[in-house]
């Protein structure tokens, strides 16, 4: 009996260690967006070019869209920006923008300088719409299918590698759905 008792701490520790080894293989930070596969959240937002015009989630129906969440104060966005320009010009992708917690005038100036890849630019000065979309930070990009369901969420800037390996194949598949 005593022999078994003295082994108890060891057994307990091994159980915990085993659990931790298992834990290493899990990725708690990769919580898939609960929005994947669901319709886009409802919204009613102004556009950058005309603050009096409000648009709703209906803008996404009928075509595959990339919704890019960006801001002028976001440096990673300005790094990503030339690539978005390239996508629109050379690959004819439709990209809409969600201008996150930004100032309209600054944003307009910024786009004049850097070029405008966006078909529609929604403005979200308070960041409330971004909360509905579950945005962590900028830049983030959602891929939305023809039935305005969210199919993928890219956290961080899109570059050549992520585009060719992940995003492009998905966009092509969605085009044929």
């Amino acid at each position, binding site marked *: 009996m005593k022999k078994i008792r003295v082994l108890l701490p060891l057994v307990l520790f091994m159980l915990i*260690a085993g659990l931790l080894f298992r834990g290493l293989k899990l990725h708690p930070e990769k919580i898939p967006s609960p929005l994947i596969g669901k319709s886009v959240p409802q919204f009613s937002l102004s556009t950058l070019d005309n603050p009096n015009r409000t648009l709703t989630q209906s803008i996404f129906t009928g075509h595959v869209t990339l919704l890019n969440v960006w801001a002028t*104060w*976001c440096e990673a966005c300005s790094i990503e920006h030339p690539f978005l320009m390239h996508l629109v010009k050379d690959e004819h992708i439709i990209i809409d923008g969600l201008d996150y917690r930004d100032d309209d005038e600054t944003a307009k100036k910024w786009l004049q300088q850097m070029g405008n890849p966006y078909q529609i630019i929604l403005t979200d000065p308070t960041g409330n719409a971004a909360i509905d979309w579950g945005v962590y930070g900028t830049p983030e990009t959602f891929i939305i299918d023809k039935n305005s369901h969210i199919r993928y969420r890219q956290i961080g800037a899109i570059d050549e590698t992520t585009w060719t390996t992940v995003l492009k194949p998905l966009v092509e598949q969605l085009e044929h759905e």
Partner: protein
Amino acid sequence: MIPELGTFAIILALCFSVLQIFHGRQSAVFGQAIFLSMAMLSLIICLITNDVTVLYVRDHSHFSLPLFYRIGAAWGGHEGSLLLWCLILSYWSALFCIFGYKKMSKQISEKMLMTLGLISTGFILFLLLTSNPFFRDFPTALIVGNDLMPVLQDPGLIFHPPVLYSGYVGCALSFAFAIAVLIKGNMTTADARACRIWIILPWSFLGCGIVSGSWWAYRELGWGGWWFWDPVENASLLPWLSATALLHSLIVSEKRHTFLGWTVLLAIITFTLSLIGTFLVRSGVLVSVHAFANDPTRGLFLLGFLTILIGGSLLLYSFRIGKFYQNVNFALFSRETMLLLNTILLLTAVFTILIGTLYPILLDALNLGKISVGEPYFNTIFIPLVLFVLLLMGIAPHIKWQKDQTSTLLKLGLPFLFSSMIVASVSFIFSTTLYTLLGIFFSAWVLLSTLQYAIKIRKNSLRHSGMIVAHIGIAILALGITFNKTYSTEKQLRIHPNESIQFANHDFYFDRINTNQGPNYQSVQAIFLVQHQKKLIGEIDAEQRIYTSHDEILSHPGILFNFWRDLYIALGNRFPDGSWSVRLYYRPFVRWIWSGGLLTVLGGLLSVLVRYKKEKPA
């Protein structure tokens, strides 16, 4: 050149640590300490000169980062903090060589140094193989650094990690002691006495680290809370609780030469928890507000080492513990029983918190979904245990060793009476809950009965001053927590400049908005004037910083504090109509929590000083 020197210094330190395993010589310890200091110095020089060819510098610094934070950046990232871990271990070992080596029997001291060498070798290998901070990469294009994470850009960064790490790593000493004792097969009273300061010191550092971490989170995160039961916070609380148990068990081992096996086991558990803490923080197994860079291979290495080291020592424990069995030589009602109960309660608390912290991994491992365990669980389990510990804390010092009459309890009538009276009057004046009343009662109980004890032993009070101060600190801490939890209020609202709002018996007038340009951020400051009973009592500047290099917005709350309460404002978004969203917090007694914690730390340091002074003439 400097980065290569750094790597070279680490390699030399590794050689010394290997030497230390086989010889247990003091010179190996000093060699290690010197070369690891050189490595740390090299890293700091790389950061100060902003040498972007070093990956670590590129990832954690920026040309606009102030000098102060560049030094702090040396432990702001994974590689650097691991180097700090190794460095501190070598310092502890060196301190032990200078002040402790000769006080213990040679067999024990030598074995301790060997064990410390083993730990050191493991960690320096880990540093070199998976996390070398001096790894270089020569970029072809001009690049700038990624900058230090904004949350870390706070004066707290300079002090908090080194202090907390000193606590974590210091637990290695009592672990080494346990291993040495197991190998030798007995623990003499003299050895137990000599070991005590090597438990109290790390325990004090841990306490100080927890307090400073709590204060940092309170000031930086803008949530108005001082404890979140976050995995990383738990990782520091667990070894502290276990070290507290160890501390008390060791007293019994020293004075009564009993509980020897229990002390040894607690020492192993304490160090295990401190290693698990390091692992949890460094491997990314758990997600927390402290989002450090993660890498699975690092986790694997660290966990493998931990399993071998701790598994090995527990195996040794199960083989050798038979030598430590003794007959029970104390009565049921005695100080021994009280202290035993106390250690069991603390260890129970450790396990419940550990379960709560690891439960999300368990569920995830069984494919039952991803969840997080929050405050309700921890509070439900932790509070009753703590109340019970407080009850014992008031009684134990008054009870005699070995055997005492239950009638001794009657002498504690006065503290009991006064505590009850305080509770009765509080419940009469304020609205309260049961837990509040219990919290107040037990805090007062510990405070008063400790004071009574101090009066009783006043001739001998210097010897026990550490314990008295530490116990009073806990009483103040418990009182602070009770009041803070019960009477805190908060409010979220939208407010225009030049508007006024009433909250928690104060008037807040939103005076103006200032915009500033910091060294590497832009900030917006909302200035509030605070009035109490029509009298201006101060100004609160709630700030929001946008760190351009990180594209991160950080709320930097404004706080107006006095002895009794904090008024705390966190600034949120601006709305298109010019109004701002703000959160107001009223936080009573929050300073008491940290003061109590610091007093406990002070108690620990005091007892070390008293011991050192007493031993000197002899």
